[in-house]
């Protein structure tokens, strides 16, 4: 039937959602280009049907109940397909938003492709969207809310000083508050506010 491809797409969306919920990573699965294109083709087909029905109705000039019903069902099929497509796309864009907040808002926001290694999984419209959204976040942060770092951690600060262990060798890293020499497997006892960003970027592990 006409809605079947749409339900397959929604099933795919649901699977992606469960995957990201259970694993906690913000890696998006591949964009279902074929499926989406097939649904769009189906919609084009339905659209043609609807037009034919309409012209027939005008030709015969009496709107019998059968033609009305046919037109209505065609419209409903298109609407259902539209809902499935929009739901899929919105779910993906929400995941992109979350990724933009979590990762790209950090100090090295410029290297977008490096931060988002699943970049090839996105359609090029989505890549454009992600770029625009990251720009929007950057603009938001530079407005009134400069002093409260909006993309900062959302877990409340409990300790002033924490122990951190270096997970990745990163050489000498310059933070706004001073220079750290990050050698792999070394430990530091530092102020939490200083290393928050390095923890989010995955260089340090909180102990």
């Amino acid at each position: 039937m006409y809605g079947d491809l749409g339900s397959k797409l929604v099933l795919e969306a649901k699977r992606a959602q469960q995957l990201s919920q259970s694993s906690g990573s913000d890696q998006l699965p591949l964009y279902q280009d074929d499926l989406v294109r097939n649904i769009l083709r189906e919609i084009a087909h339905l659209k043609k049907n609807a037009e034919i029905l309409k012209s027939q109705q005008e030709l015969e000039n009496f709107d019998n109940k059968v033609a009305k019903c046919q037109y209505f069902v065609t419209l409903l099929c298109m609407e259902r397909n539209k809902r499935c497509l929009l739901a899929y796309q919105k779910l993906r864009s929400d995941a992109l938003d979350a990724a933009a907040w979590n990762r790209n808002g950090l100090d090295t926001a410029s290297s977008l492709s490096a931060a988002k290694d699943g970049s090839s999984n996105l359609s090029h419209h989505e890549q454009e969207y992600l770029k625009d959204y990251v720009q929007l976040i950057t603009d938001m942060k530079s407005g009134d809310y400069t002093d409260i770092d909006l993309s900062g951690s959302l877990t409340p600060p409990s300790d002033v000083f924490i122990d951190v262990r270096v997970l990745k060798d990163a050489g000498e890293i310059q933070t706004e508050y001073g220079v750290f020499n990050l050698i792999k497997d070394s430990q530091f006892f530092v102020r939490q506010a200083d290393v928050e960003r390095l923890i989010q970027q995955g260089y340090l592990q909180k102990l």
Partner: protein
Amino acid sequence: MNIDIEDILADLDRDTTAVDQTLTSQGQNDTTVFGSDAPGSDKAGGTAVSPVRDFEALMTHWRNERLGPELLPYPHALMARMLRRVQEQLEHIECISMGYLETLGEEDDHGTSDGGSSSNVLNKLPLLCMEADLERLKFVLRSYVRCRLAKVDKYSLYLRQLAQDNERVVPLSDLLSRQELEYHERHSAILLKLLNSTILRHMPPELQAVDDNEGSVKMVEEPEWDRFVFVYVRGPTSPRDPDPALEVGPDGQCFYNVMIQELREEVELTVGSIYVMRYNVVRELILEGKVELI
């Protein structure tokens, strides 16, 4: 024979504390944690504005925002004050730590390393407390703003519909801050661009709207008005002026009367107790600050 002299004592108390307050506030001006207020803004709206009270108000706003289903009005004046204080305190801390470095350097020049380290230990504690406090305040503000942005995202179509609606009580500029308005506009624009270029372009013209409410399913998501929330009944904000909505029961307890529409049942919300209620039942009381979400 017992004469109640509470009011006379209170009168006396007020006289003495007035003197005390000026003394302590002068003393606090240098070290107060959230930065001191400008003297002009103290009498804004008749009630005294103090950093502590502002912080309590912010915490209430934060809790209500996180727990309520609806986007609540933005506290413009409060947030402006808070952001200004954060900035002032940042500068203050910077000044102190600079001055601290200078004095330390001088002491090192004099070669009194023992004295330097001991004063070092003595000086560090207030600085540490200020920084930790500032971090906490910044966290609350950040969490509050992020929560609001998430709601703006969720209800963006609904908000757009509100903006077009002329007979509204609260204009959109009161509901959102300037930055949130900009975020709302731009985010919905880029989202619409994405949906248009991938999907809606291929639709027949009568199905191209994203805010279509006439179809089989409404596409504009409204807040869940009858979600259940936990509420704490706080009572009137100041104990002196009586609240007309407040009623006194036969056993001397104060309560608010609210009506649950669909059950046609009246409920008494006793001051100081906790209830589970539908949001739309207590919405007015929440907006007036007589009831808090917990």
